């Protein structure tokens, strides 16, 4: 009996304008989205690949440890065309060096003029908004329309319980949504797979499947809401208005209002305030360095005896690279390095702490917005999908945390090689064995320029690159599939619960409803 009703409802829906228009709309939107976002992904992946090789090449050229500065890149998430989440909002690379601590920074946002409508047309957004609307439009007259036409009373004059009718209507309706959803996703998947750079691993298929499943749960929840409204209102035009009101309120307004409210409840300083505070810190750093310099005056530099020199400032002993210099100069630089680099790193840590505060306040705010948004099934749905796609905020924040860990690993590595606060940081020469300026003057006087030149050497070109084969690689372990699925569980769970709640509610309402026209 249930199946008879379901089949009736399904056929009824399939023969309507609604379904046809919905199908066309789905095909257009899904393929549009897939085409645009695939190209976008291809571009981002290409940029990522070129950035990675560019950065790798730079590191390999390091001749002294001061040159080790790595930029780590974040690989674009494969499923970002499905659910964009925070993907584009965060930077795709982070600079890692001794004195730069990677922190959250914003991405180069799409400078697309007049992105006035959907900020993203990823698949999940289309499902959330357009298919959500369709689900409501299929269900708003499932009871009130049948009641008006007298068909409901007719059905119930047979040997069928109200619960069965309810279940039948529900099944028929959701089965109508199913082809729209599946066809849409299939079309999109087809378009993705035609791209040469996109290849799905088993875990990607798994997550795509999970996203499809959650989409169905979401659409089912909305369908049930439409059914409840249909049962409770007297005529179908009233149901329609109420259903559209619900859609506007819960799918469009509340998810966004939640973000606004969160901004109010947990206001954060703008990032540039943190920037300004950092600048204060740097000023302190410079003062200290200046003070140190005043206590440790610079020995006389004879330029003819100095080769391949690059420093932060001629007046302070903070070297970057020095190929050759007389011993007293080198010692001055070395002692200076030990002070300045250490200070710089300390201040970098302090600055890093400031930014981490900023980061965690952002995370707090985002969390509050997410909690408030749980009022809306649409937001629950999107958040769950973002987790599945690997584009939720905590996954992206992990990139920066990983970058910070990598920095620590790098520093540890350099320290082990005794390359940090030592001569190896900035010069290949053995400082203790270097001649002084006086020595070199003597040599020049006695044996001439050629002798001096042979002592000094030919320059950086003759220095080979460091052997960095055992340097730790940037290889952040991707999150395990199981853990990721787990993280989406709360939101998905609430959606399932809502389904049950709504179904029970519909049942209760229907049991007491008046089925006469």
């Amino acid at each position, binding site marked *: 009996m249930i199946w008879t009703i379901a089949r009736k409802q399904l056929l009824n829906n399939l023969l309507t304008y609604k379904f046809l228009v919905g199908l066309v709309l789905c095909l257009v939107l899904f393929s549009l989205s897939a085409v645009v976002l695939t190209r976008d992904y291809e*571009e981002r992946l290409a940029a990522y690949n*070129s950035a990675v090789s560019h950065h790798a090449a730079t590191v390999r050229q390091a001749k002294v440890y001061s040159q080790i500065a790595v930029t780590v890149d974040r690989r674009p998430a494969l499923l970002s065309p499905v659910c964009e989440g925070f993907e584009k909002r965060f930077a795709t690379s982070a600079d890692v060096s001794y004195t730069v601590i990677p922190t959250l920074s914003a991405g180069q946002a799409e400078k*697309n003029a007049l*992105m*006035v409508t*959907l900020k993203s047309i990823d698949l999940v957004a289309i499902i959330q908004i357009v298919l959500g609307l369709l689900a409501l439009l299929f269900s708003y007259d499932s009871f009130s329309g049948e009641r008006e036409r007298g068909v409901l009373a007719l059905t119930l004059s047979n040997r069928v319980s109200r619960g069965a009718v309810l279940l039948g209507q529900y099944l028929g309706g959701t089965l109508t949504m199913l082809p729209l959803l599946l066809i849409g996703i299939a079309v999109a998947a087809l378009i993705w797979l035609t791209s040469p750079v996109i290849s799905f691993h088993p875990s990607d298929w798994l997550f795509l499947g999970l996203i499809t499943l959650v989409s169905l749960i979401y659409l089912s929840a909305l369908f049930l809401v439409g059914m409840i409204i249909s049962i409770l209102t007297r005529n179908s035009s009233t149901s329609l208005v109420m259903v559209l009101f619900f859609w506007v309120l819960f799918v469009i*307004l509340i998810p966004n209002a939640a973000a606004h409210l969160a901004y109010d409840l947990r206001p954060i300083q703008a990032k*540039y305030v943190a920037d300004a505070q950092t600048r204060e810190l740097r000023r302190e750093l410079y003062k200290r360095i200046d003070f140190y310099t005043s206590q440790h005056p610079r020995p*006389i530099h004879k*330029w003819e005896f100095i080769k391949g020199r690059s420093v932060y400032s001629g007046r302070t002993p903070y070297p970057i690279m020095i190929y050759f210099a007389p011993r007293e100069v080198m010692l001055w630089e070395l002692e200076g390095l030990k002070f300045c680099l250490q200070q710089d790193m300390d201040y970098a840590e302090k600055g890093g702490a400031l930014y981490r505060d900023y980061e965690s306040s952002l995370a707090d705010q985002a969390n509050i917005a997410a909690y408030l948004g749980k009022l809306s099934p649409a937001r629950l749905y999107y958040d769950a999908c973002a987790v599945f796609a690997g584009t939720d905020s905590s996954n992206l924040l992990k990139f920066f945390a990983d970058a910070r860990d990598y920095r620590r690993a790098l520093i540890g590595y350099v320290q082990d090689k005794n390359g940090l606060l030592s001569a190896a940081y900035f010069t290949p020469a053995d400082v203790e064995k270097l001649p002084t300026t006086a020595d070199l003057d003597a040599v020049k006087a006695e044996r001439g320029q050629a002798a001096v030149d042979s002592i000094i050497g030919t320059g950086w070109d003759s220095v080979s690159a460091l052997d960095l084969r055992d340097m730790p690689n940037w290889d952040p372990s991707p999150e395990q599939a199981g853990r990721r699925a787990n993280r989406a569980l709360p939101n998905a769970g609430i959606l399932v619960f809502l389904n049950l709640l709504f179904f029970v509610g519909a049942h209760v309402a229907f049991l007491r409803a008046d089925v006469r026209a």
Partner: protein
Amino acid sequence: MIWIIAQKEIRDNLLSLRFLLLFLLAVVFIPASLYTNYRAYQARLSDQQQVEKSNREYLRNLQVTQIFTAANFAIDIYWPPSPASVFAEGFEDIHPRHLVVGKNSVEYGAPLAVGSSMGLFGSIDYLFVVEFVFSLFAILMSFDAITREKENGTLRSILANAVSRPVLATGKLVGGYVTLALPLVVSFLVGLLTLQLSGMSVFEPEFLARAEWVLVSSLLYIAVFFLLGLLVSSSVSSTYAALVLSLAVWLTVVLVLPRAGSLAAQLWRPVKSDQVVWLEKLSAANAIEMEKGKAVQDAGLFPKTNPSAEEWGKLQKRRSEVAAPFEDRAVQAIRRIEGDYRRRKAEQVDLGLTLARLSPAGAFVNFATEMSDTGIRAADRFTNDAEQYREVLQQELFSKILRYVIPGVGITMGLTGPINPATLSEFRLARVRARDSVAGVDIAILLSWFLAAAVLTYGALARYDVR
């Protein structure tokens, strides 16, 4: 006769559920969005003032030794928010709030707050509520205006009297629109009142002028949608078909068309990505730096012995003479690359904008963001002013810092002249008057849509089968 029908429409609508719901939504969300945006504006203003203060101090206390980072030296400038931004926040993406003015370029700085709104639609501001919610409800008010009366039989009852079809159409239009505009105007006024009570000076002439324009354009915008719904209703015979068609129309006009516009522009006029351009600039600059360094070296201006103080002065002067042409070339090269990129990007953006503005939603958004001083032209103005500031700084600061890459030797830096940080110019952004922000074209586009829909509606209703 028109007034009799209009009066009936108004009364009927005021008693309907949809009017009630629309009124509730409007009167809650519009003042709320204005208020929240006002708070955000205040926060941004105070943050920005704080930062500018520290900027000024930093410039004033700039020690010459600190210019060891001068190669990457840059000054941050911030866009001062305008009060009218309570209406339309604009988008960080197209309206940079923070620019970094450096020797070689003006670049985007970090945006305000990452992730404060993970909105699919951005954030809720007044513009959003009107653009999406009101337009939807406008169509909802009118989509069954004719079909419902036809199905009820009242259409025949009306037309059995001496009422011509145009008269009927006008009565429906006037009556329906009044009930639609009422919640908008009321909540707008409530919103302004809320702002006034929160401490904003609403009656300041500039702000008031902008507010008026925003209201006028909003009223025109929803009139277009009301007419579109009426057109659909006059073209089909069942409420059901009218519903499907109206929603399809709404989705197309509001969601698909504007997006399609910028998409088409990207396909038509593709532009190199930022990455590529940045790399181009870098390699051009580096190449010239190398040549410059070599020239200075060849001119023998890197002494092997320690020069005395006055010799050092003369040396610096000669160095800058030799370096000058290279500096110029570097600046030209970068300007050329940037200019080229900017021009192409601007072409693409303009094309996308033009296409998007063909839709009433696009036109309305453009108009409202211009009026709120958060639109494309405001963004352009800010960027242009930043460029000009960079020219000024080039004179006062950047040209005096010279950085040499000497092949085989290393990097060295020097100053060609004294820099007095206290006299460095500050950045000033000129304000635009309200009347100069009026994007007349958008109003024309909205009016055209209105007139076209009106003409089609009257035509459709004249042929309508009322039986």
